[in-house]
């Protein structure tokens, strides 16, 4: 099924990033939230991404305006009757996601697809309560979606193959790289990455190495573009913690972060986005 118009539910940073990616591909997209201030922040975030593209000479001001005009921020369901795909990007709380999805389902055409951008919750669980779980899937964008090319396409227990096929086509259409992933806790990329991160935290203790020295060694080795501590900061320590708890519950102690992040989060250090994590960030 071809997507002519999309909607993103939740105008937080991730929702805004996803809406920007969709609008950049030339598709109209509604950015919906229940909080007017949040919509303003989301729209401002998208304008910021386009302004930087203009600054870098990647598009003209006129082009940026044209793309920006494809994004409509709103509180209600006006215009949802011809939305082909709605992507949910609200906070990672199962009850909240279910409530949001059930409400939107009633406002969409019967043929529409519905997706969740969860990184921690099972797609099949979120689907419960939907009238048509066969048309529901996971589209896992990575942070920041305006930069990261990958989208994991995840079918739940009730998802139709046609639905995941449409998901893959949509992701290609917005010029991202789709990878089909069978549902499992953490999905693919975060699962594999967090296994490495947990091992680095154990090695830090065993070997008595400083985080900055570890990051320098990893970056110099060419194994990863940046060290694991800088990467955790970029990902968001709260997200890393949330995902690792899901993984640890599912697969065991190889995903134990040993409290290495919990202490920082308790001090309000959630990584680059909060100004501090393992490192301090300015500007």
């Amino acid at each position: 099924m071809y997507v002519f118009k999309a909607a993103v539910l939740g105008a937080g940073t991730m929702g805004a990033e996803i809406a920007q990616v969709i609008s950049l591909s030339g598709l109209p997209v509604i950015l919906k939230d229940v909080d007017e201030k949040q919509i303003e922040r989301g729209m401002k975030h998208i304008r910021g991404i386009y302004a930087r593209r203009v600054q870098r000479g990647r598009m003209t001001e006129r082009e940026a305006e044209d793309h920006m005009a494809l994004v409509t921020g709103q509180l209600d369901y006006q215009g949802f009757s011809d939305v082909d795909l709605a992507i949910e990007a609200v906070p990672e709380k199962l009850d909240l996601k279910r409530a949001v999805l059930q409400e939107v389902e009633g406002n969409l055409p019967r043929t529409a697809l519905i997706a969740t951008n969860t990184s921690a919750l099972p797609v099949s669980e979120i689907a419960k309560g939907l009238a048509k779980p066969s048309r529901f899937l996971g589209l896992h964008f990575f942070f920041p979606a305006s930069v990261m090319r990958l989208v994991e396409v995840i079918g739940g227990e009730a998802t139709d193959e046609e639905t995941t096929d449409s998901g893959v086509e949509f992701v290609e259409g917005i010029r991202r790289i789709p990878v089909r992933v069978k549902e499992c806790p953490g999905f693919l990329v975060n699962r594999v990455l967090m296994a490495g991160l947990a091992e680095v935290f154990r090695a830090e203790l065993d070997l008595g190495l400083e985080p900055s020295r570890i990051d320098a060694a990893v970056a110099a080795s060419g194994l990863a573009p940046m060290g694991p501590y800088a990467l955790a900061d970029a990902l968001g320590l709260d997200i890393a913690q949330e995902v690792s708890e899901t993984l640890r519950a599912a697969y065991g102690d190889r995903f134990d972060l040993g409290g290495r992040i919990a202490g920082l989060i308790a001090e309000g250090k959630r990584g680059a986005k909060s100004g501090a994590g393992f490192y301090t960030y300015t500007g």
Partner: protein
Amino acid sequence: MADEKEQELLDRFRYAVLLEAVRCLDEGISSAREIDIAMRAGAGLPEGPLAAADKTGLDVVLRRLEELEQRWGDRFTPPGRLRELVGAGRTGVAAGRGFLEY
């Protein structure tokens, strides 16, 4: 050049990532090719973990995992799939086949 401790850390990071990728492969989460694409495009790794192991040589990878298993325990136990590949002479890029085909 990394010193001994740093080399140990790099190996532990690298092989923890590889082993989880192989578990995903065994569980049918994605194909070998897609796992590598995902780790490059989603985590920014310059090389997919499976392709990187093929390049090192799976016989070398197997020996190093046995050492890490002895020192750090079960979490580094070499996967059955790796032993089978090495046993079948599919030791990676040099052999023309490993986790991936060349």
